Every structure is written in structure tokens, then in C-alpha cells.
């Protein structure tokens, strides 16, 4: 029993932080500890959480993707166009899935096949895809969505009004968890993050695995887009602009080694919950946006510091032969 706790020190720490954050949020505002409120505001972690799960797969292989929010925006405006054209929901979803896969594949091609630095490439595609979203969607917020489109992001079940999208999120966590920890594909991702050379020499295609992670993450962004339009009821070119920082924070704080090769879906889930608890508590206490940024930034720094002392994360001590000069190239 003790060994389970020892090998999951990070996850345990985040779990404790979640409880502490909840206690703190309760002291900050009397409105926090209310079932309805908690359920309702937990909606805010869904679309960013799904992007975080997808990003985890990419980071596990030692790469990065800054363009996921832009992919989400392309999908929201495409859904807007589809709704305006009265396309049935299924067709619209197929459309954005196809487009998202294409956008992800493009990223994967540049990073995995051409072996360009992921940070630079996805920074570029985040701008390019954002521009694409503006061209398709313009600054006019489209709000006349057909009811069926909005269902996933706005429906609730039962008298307690549990948002449907929470179930979607839980399902996503389970699916990603299975992929990461119980599938061959996931094992390959971990392996590539630890030692890409060895993986290549053992005959497994690193390129195909990495392409797969980019495409899966982009598909996650498309799902996030569908939830987004139901949640906010509006689609514009600037949707989800600026969320990438929060998404990366949730992954890194979740104990995923930013150089790849280590991490758990449980850690990412707990850190998503932790960050949302903080934001919810601070928001209810009317703490200004800059103070919130300061606190979340300080947390990220502390997270990196702690990981240093526990041998995980960005400063993980690795055997010399695996030290990489350029962390973003394989």
C-alpha cells in the first residue's frame, strides 16, 4: 500500500492541494460551497480540460502543441456556418472532425515527419489557424445556433441539473486514461518520450505515433468546440483565444514531464480540478484578473520547484545518455 503512495507522490500532493483549495475557496466566499454552484461552474473546466488531455499525449512524446485553441476556434466557426446553412448536426460534426484531423495532421507532418521544432511550428500554426478562424467566422459573433447544436453544451439531467458536458468530460478522462495507460499506442508514447532512438531501432514508427497524438488532440479540440458553442451560444474568430497558458499549466502541474516520458492521467485530472477550484473561488470573491494570474503563475513556478525536489517534471534527473540538447526535437 505504502509503495503505491510513494510512486504516486505527485498525484497525492495535487489531491491534497485540491482539498486545500476547496477549503480556501469556502472561506473566501459563502457562495462557494453550494452544490448547484459547484456543478454549474465546473462546466468551465470541460473544454479546456479536454484540450489538456489531448495535449498530455503530445507532451508525453516530448513534443508540444500551442495551436489547439485555434483549432477549436476554426471548429466553432465552422459549426456556425453549418448551423446557418441548416446542415443536420451529424453532418456538421463530421465536417469539423475531418477539418480538425486535417489541422492536426498538418502539425504532425511538420513536427514528426519534417522534424521541425514543435514549439516554433505550433506557434506558427496557432496564428495561422486563428487567422483561418477569423476568415471563416469574422468578428461577428454568430449566435443563432440551432437547438440541436447547442444541446451538448447546455443540457442538464435530473432535478439536480447536472450538466451533460460533465459526463462527456468524465468519458474523455476514461478514454484518454485507457489510451495512455492500457494501450499499445500509449505505451509507445511513453517510450518515445523516454528514448526515441531506441523506439525507432525497435521498428516502431515514431512518426506515425506522433502524428497520431496530434490528430487525437485536434479531435479533442473539435469536441471542445461542440461543447463550447452549447456553453456560450456564440461563435467568433477569437473563441478560446489565450487559453493555451491555462491548458499547459494544468498539464505540467499534473505531473507530466514537459520533456516527455512521464505522467499520469490522474495527475492531469486532479490538476484540472485544482485549477478550476482556485479560479471558481477567486472569481466568487471578486478577486481581480491580475491577482488571479499572479496566483496561478506562482503556482506554476512552485509546481516546477516541487517537481525538482521530487525528481519529476522539468528538472527530472535523467541518465546522462538520455539528456537532450534540443528538447523539442526527437
Amino acid at each position, binding site marked *: 500500500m505504502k509503495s503505491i503512495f510513494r510512486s504516486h507522490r505527485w498525484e497525492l500532493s495535487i489531491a491534497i492541494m485540491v482539498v486545500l483549495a476547496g477549503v480556501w475557496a469556502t472561506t473566501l466566499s459563502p457562495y462557494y460551497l453550494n452544490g448547484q454552484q459547484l456543478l454549474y461552474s465546473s462546466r468551465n473546466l470541460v473544454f479546456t480540460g479536454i484540450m489538456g488531455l489531448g495535449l498530455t499525449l503530445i507532451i508525453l512524446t516530448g513534443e508540444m502543441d500551442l495551436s489547439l485553441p485555434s483549432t477549436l476556434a476554426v471548429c466553432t466557426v465552422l459549426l456556425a456556418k453549418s448551423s446557418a446553412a441548416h446542415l443536420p448536426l451529424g453532418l456538421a460534426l463530421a465536417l469539423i472532425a475531418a477539418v480538425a484531423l486535417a489541422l492536426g495532421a498538418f502539425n504532425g507532418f511538420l513536427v514528426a515527419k519534417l522534424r521541425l521544432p514543435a514549439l516554433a511550428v505550433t506557434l506558427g500554426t496557432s496564428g495561422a489557424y486563428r487567422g483561418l478562424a477569423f476568415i471563416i467566422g469574422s*468578428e*461577428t*459573433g454568430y449566435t443563432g445556433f440551432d437547438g440541436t447544436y447547442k444541446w451538448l453544451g447546455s443540457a442538464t439531467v435530473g432535478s439536480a441539473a447536472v450538466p451533460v458536458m460533465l459526463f462527456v468530460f468524465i468519458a474523455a478522462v476514461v478514454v484518454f486514461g485507457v489510451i495512455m495507460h492500457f494501450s499499445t499506442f500509449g505505451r509507445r508514447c511513453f517510450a518515445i518520450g523516454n528514448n526515441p532512438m531506441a523506439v525507432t531501432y525497435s521498428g516502431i514508427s515514431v512518426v506515425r505515433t506522433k502524428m497520431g497524438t496530434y490528430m487525437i488532440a485536434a479531435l479533442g479540440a473539435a469536441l471542445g468546440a461542440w461543447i463550447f458553442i452549447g456553453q456560450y451560444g456564440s461563435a467568433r474568430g477569437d*473563441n478560446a483565444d489565450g487559453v493555451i497558458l491555462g491548458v499547459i499549466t494544468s498539464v505540467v502541474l499534473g505531473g507530466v514531464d514537459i520533456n516527455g516520458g512521464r505522467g499520469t492521467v490522474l495527475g492531469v485530472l486532479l490538476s484540472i480540478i485544482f485549477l478550476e477550484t482556485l479560479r471558481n473561488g477567486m472569481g466568487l470573491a*471578486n478577486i*481581480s484578473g491580475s*491577482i488571479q494570474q*499572479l496566483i496561478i503563475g506562482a503556482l506554476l513556478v512552485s509546481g516546477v520547484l*516541487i517537481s525538482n525536489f521530487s525528481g519529476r517534471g522539468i528538472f527530472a534527473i535523467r541518465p546522462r545518455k538520455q539528456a537532450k540538447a534540443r528538447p523539442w526535437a526527437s
Partner: protein
Amino acid sequence: MKRGIALFIVLVVLAGSAFAAPAKKYRIFMNPKFTGLSYFEICAEGAKEAAKELGVDFVYTGSEQADVQLQVQSLENIVAQRPDAIIVSAIDLNAVAPPLVRARAMGIKVVSYDADTAMNARDFFCNQMSYEGVARAMLDCALADSPQGGEIAFIAASPTSPNHMAHIRIMTELCKTDPKYKVFKPVATQFAGDDEAKSIDVATNLMQAYPNLKVIISSSAVSAPAAARAIEIVGKVGKVFATGVALPSSIRSYLKDGSEKAFFIWDPAKLGYMSVYVAKAALDGTLVNKVGTKVSCGKLGEFTVGKDGEIVYGRPLIFTPENIDQYNF
């Protein structure tokens, strides 16, 4: 060591709670488009004054960037705190509707100011001036800049800001129908999202695309001075003029050095002041949504409810080089 760091984190986070705001009795929250703009800060000053006179608790809170999702989230946070009334200026009239409709269903009074929300999302709208009043005032300023008329272009925040779009629609109509404004020919409308850098870019592009452009008219208090700046940068001072809605402090230098001749605004502090009185009257039940009902707003006097719950403040201030020094906000 690790425990020390964990303690440090807890302390950092606890320190943040020092900035939390307390609350009790009639609580009114004011949520601007974003908190960074001095125009909204001044509205809040006026609102705070009214809140003190009326003895209500007042909280001014919002996101720091002009972002639709951030405003929706800050409104949801506000609604979760169960205030008695919410005063809001909306970036996107439809996007902010869901949390506000929920608020009204919970019995919270919603009063919009400066930029209206969808009609089912608010009880009353404190309009600084009737859309036609603003349109006429801006065209009058344009006439002061360029009495012989010419091509004019408009800059608005976004296609989803109902006030700006209404101004443009009415100005375009007036240029066709009203003999006083027939000298003007509207050629373009551009959007700059209340962002200064973007406004300068947009104004520069307009001048390049339309070499005979005479006046750039901006409904946004951010874009009007930015357009004046763009004219300076491009070097077309005296050939192209900028006018529209602007805070006196932001265009004082342009009026003084003669590059611009007239801007206008309403007193934002008084608009904020009025919105709190309207919210309190709505809470007391003395103000009902019927055309012709009067509401008394402290030292501002009385206002009348118009169509669709709109209450017009209606007192413009036109700034010229002669009177600019009288105003210091």
C-alpha cells in the same frame, strides 16, 4: 523542504484572499465591458457616489480584457453571489444573455448601461444618449472639422455592439435625408474592438484605401483618439480629421494643437450615477417598465422611461479647443 514549499504555496494563495471583497444588504454589482478603460472607471466613480448616497453596497468587478468569454464568466461569478441587482455594459449583446436571463429568473434586477444586452436579458437600459442624438452630435462635430463635407468613414467596436451599429445606421441615413448633412458621403465601416493599436491600424488603412477621406468618425472612445494619432503618424493633419466619442483627457492635446476641432461625449460619471439610481428604483418597485414612467436620480433630476425599457440620459458635451480646459476627466 518540500513541506516548506507546500506551506509557501498555501501562504501565497491565502495572501490572495486579502483582496477578496466583503458584502451585505442591497448589493449592486457593476460589470463593465472590461475594467482597463478609464471611461468605465469614471462610470464606476459616479456609480460609487450614487451608492453612497443611497446606502447600498456596491461592487465594481469585471475582466481586464475585452473578451466575450471572460465577460460571460465574470457575469456567472457575479450571479453565483446572488446580488440584488447587476449593472452591465455588454461586449456582445447575445453572448451575455444566458447568465443574465438566469439572474432575472432568480429575481435579480438587471440594468444595462452604455452598451445594451439582448432585450430579454435586462429590465432597463440606461442609454447615454438616444442613438439618433449621438449620430447627430457626431455629424455636427464632423461638420465643425470639415464644413464643406466630403467622404467619411466609421469605426465601431464590433458588429455586435448595438449602440455603435445603430449610430452608423442612423448617420448613414441622415447623410442621405437631412439637408444639413448631405455634404457627407459615407464610404466605409471598420471594426477595431475597442483596442487602441488596432484602431490606429484601421484608421491608417482607411486613409490609404480612400485617399479623399475627410473625416473618420468613431463611436468608440478608444478609437477616436487613436484615429487622431494615426492621422498624425501618417502626416495628414489638416487634410483628414478624426472625431467621435472621446474622453476629454485623451483628445486634449489634439484640440490644443489644432489638429482636431471637435469631439463629444456625455459625462460617464453621471451615467454611472444614474444607473445605480435606476437599479435601486427597480429594486424598490417604484420603477416599472411602462412608457412615460418617471424615475428620480438624485442630483441629476428626473428621467422618463421610453420604449422597451430604455431610459435616455441625453446630455451631450461637445469639446472644442475653447472649452476643453473646463473638463478634467
